[in-house]
């Protein structure tokens, strides 16, 4: 199962198509732009996996892609791992469960279904599918199994893979969009089958099942001594009861493990197959993009077909010709004359008159202070009307300066990623001021996702 270093990872055709053409990277903009529509439309695309660190909009991206694919005519199921209630609600489903539910209100000929992984249920199904009913009942009743399946660390990853394999095997959907578990380490879900494999190949399992199996086989006698010593140690550690539970569990699972493992291996291969597309999701922040770079490298090492990076929540400005520095300078221009001209009032509250003493007659300070009680009414209505607008304009300019600084920072962060991975196609999704609550919101994100490719090309 180890990757063959001689064979270079395949790059998806969808991404390279958009990379062709004369347009070259401008500044720090990514060299390649990811166009999601051809990817979603291609009947050969059967699985899209969204991975990325927590809090970057991974689940929302998965749902938006699913909806877009459905509305472009495909029959889609979105498998979500993270129990985000909002997302279920945004698809008009009060709660998602282990069975795909049709999402109502989609446009066009396609269909959108959504489901949420129920670890325990999925695990139970696996057991029931691989063991005869008597054995299955024994396993399901085992206390060790019950804790294992209820969602201890790691189980989620196995079960996500298992569910994906099941959905794909049914062949009921044109496209499966899945978001990955919020794993402690980035790609636990990829390691899960391998770990399971190495565990099953290992001697530990034989050791644990030893008391049940090693009856009178003479040849195994010397092993038996070692093993009883080991089980003795384990018993000491775990306590007799737990060891017995574990042993019964492993013994009962023994025959079902084979099928379990075959499927885990099959799912892993499925992920490497040409019909699968991995999308790394990130936000233009240092940590998220660092994780993204790690994902890219891991996927490459595992020969998983990465098609690109979705960069969520990218900011833009309609006035990006006005730099932060100029905006701030203009804001100061607007504030300064007011303070000088009007002396008292607001300026008196903000700044000591002494600051401006050099340019004004000394007498004006006490005068301003004295007048500060009723300055506005004496200065007349024109000044009164102007002042809030000036104040607002100062705020608008400050806001713009903040936005431009944010833009510059995002560009730098993205540039660092692009420098490290120029081969990765990127699509940027503009930031929304609010949250997504319904299909309209998801559709909007889908549109933004698709427009990301066209928009940037149009600019050039």
């Amino acid at each position, binding site marked *: 199962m180890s990757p063959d270093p001689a064979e270079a990872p395949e790059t998806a055709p969808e991404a390279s198509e958009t990379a062709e053409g004369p347009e070259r990277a401008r500044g720090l903009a990514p060299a390649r732009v990811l166009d999601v529509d051809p990817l979603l439309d291609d009947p050969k695309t059967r699985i899209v996996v969204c991975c990325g660190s927590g809090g970057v909009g991974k689940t929302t991206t998965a749902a938006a892609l699913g909806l877009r694919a459905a509305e472009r005519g495909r029959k889609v199921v979105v498998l979500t791992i993270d129990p985000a209630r909002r997302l279920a609600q945004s698809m008009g489903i009060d709660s998602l469960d282990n069975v795909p539910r049709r999402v109502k209100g989609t446009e066009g000929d396609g269909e959108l279904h959504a489901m949420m992984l129920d670890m325990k249920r999925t695990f139970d199904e696996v057991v029931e599918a691989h063991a005869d009913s008597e054995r299955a009942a024994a396993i399901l009743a085992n206390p060790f199994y019950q804790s294992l399946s209820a969602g201890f660390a790691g189980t989620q990853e196995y079960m996500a893979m298992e569910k994906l394999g099941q959905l794909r095997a049914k062949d009921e959907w044109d496209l499966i969009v899945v978001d990955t578990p919020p794993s402690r*380490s980035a790609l636990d879900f990829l390691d899960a089958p391998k770990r399971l494999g190495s565990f099953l190949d290992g001697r530990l399992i034989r*050791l644990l099942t030893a008391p049940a199996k090693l009856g009178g086989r003479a040849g195994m006698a010397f092993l038996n001594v070692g093993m009883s010593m080991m089980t003795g140690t384990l018993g000491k550690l775990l306590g007799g009861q737990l060891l017995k539970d574990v042993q019964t569990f492993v013994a009962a699972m023994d025959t079902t493990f084979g099928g379990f493992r075959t499927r885990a291996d099959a799912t892993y291969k499925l992920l490497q197959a040409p019909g699968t597309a991995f999308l790394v999701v990130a936000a233009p922040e240092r940590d998220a993009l660092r994780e993204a770079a790690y994902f890219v490298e891991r996927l490459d090492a595992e020969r998983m077909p990465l098609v690109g990076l979705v960069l969520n929540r990218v900011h833009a400005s309609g006035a990006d010709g006005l730099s932060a520095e100029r905006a701030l300078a*203009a804001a100061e221009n607007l504030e300064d004359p007011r303070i000088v001209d009007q002396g008292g009032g607001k300026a008196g509250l903000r700044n000591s008159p002494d600051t401006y003493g050099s340019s004004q007659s000394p007498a004006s300070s006490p005068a301003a202070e004295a007048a500060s009680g009723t300055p506005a009414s004496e200065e007349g209505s024109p000044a009164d009307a102007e002042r809030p607008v000036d104040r607002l304009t100062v705020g608008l300019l400050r806001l713009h300066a903040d936005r431009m600084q944010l833009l510059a920072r995002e560009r730098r962060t993205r540039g660092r990623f692009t420098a490290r991975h120029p081969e990765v196609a990127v699509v940027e999704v503009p930031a929304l001021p609010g949250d997504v609550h319904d299909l309209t919101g998801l559709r909007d994100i889908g549109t933004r996702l698709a427009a990301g490719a066209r928009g940037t090309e149009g600019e050039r």
Partner: protein
Amino acid sequence: MSRLQVVSGKGGTGKTTVAAALALALATEGKRTLLVEVEGRQGIAQLFETEALPYEERKIAVAPGGGEVYALAIDPELALLDYLQMFYKLGGAGRALKKLGAIDFATTVAPGIRDVLLTGKACEAVRRKDKSGKFAYDYVVMDAPPTGRVTRFLNVNDEVAGLAKIGPIHNQAQAVMRVLKSPETAVHLVTLLEEMPVQETADGIAELRAARLPVGRVIVNMVRPQVLDAADLELVRTVGRSSVAQALSAAGLGGARRGGHAEKLVDPLLRQASEYAERYALEQEQRAVLGELDLPLGELPLLPEGVDLAGLYELATELRKQGLS
């Protein structure tokens, strides 16, 4: 002040940053704190701009007033061998178990054992005393798994104690739970003023309370400064475009007439202001939701240039100012 401070939060809310700032804040005035990382991400090393942390307690920062921050990235495999050696003098057997794949099994495949080791190690650091009988660390700050998983993570020993009904693991699990469920521990949740993190925080608190784990505070992170106040926002909706254009022109940004430089800025700037207004309204809503949680709130500002080492000290100062440490 609880001696074990657990920091959790939804992904992307900056819980590692808050944990690090808290460790710094608690170390002020000659105290010694241990900052514990359990997720193997090396986030602490990156924050403190040091090389990757080994499985070893090492000093990574000095706090104002001579305090010290130590850091430890717990490696489950080494923690298990450590544990076997410490309690059973099983160094050799540990190696044998490793050869068999048992250690690998225990730390990656076997349910919960990994979390048992991680919480166990943190609690050991909390209880550890030096030769003179003083606590080795005044405070232990744990950068814990995200909100969605933290209750199960902290509660894992309860389940283990139920599974292993007798024996040393049972006893160890119970000892850990005694620390975690006592006032010695406080679990803080970091959030942003956005709908999903706030919702997750509320759910997380309910879960923690149901498991009888001590909830500390909610820390609102990355709070943006107020640029436009309520009066400004009101005006954004009603103001005449031409008067804004004139003001921009007066500020030196070009002509106010149609097609002039200043005039062309009006629409984009007003659009940015309405986006700000929308977000501001959402933030107020989320503040109200947080207010209903009936928990002490802390607030940390958004650092415009991102968090670097200097920023971390800034946040630590802010935490102290708010009495959060």
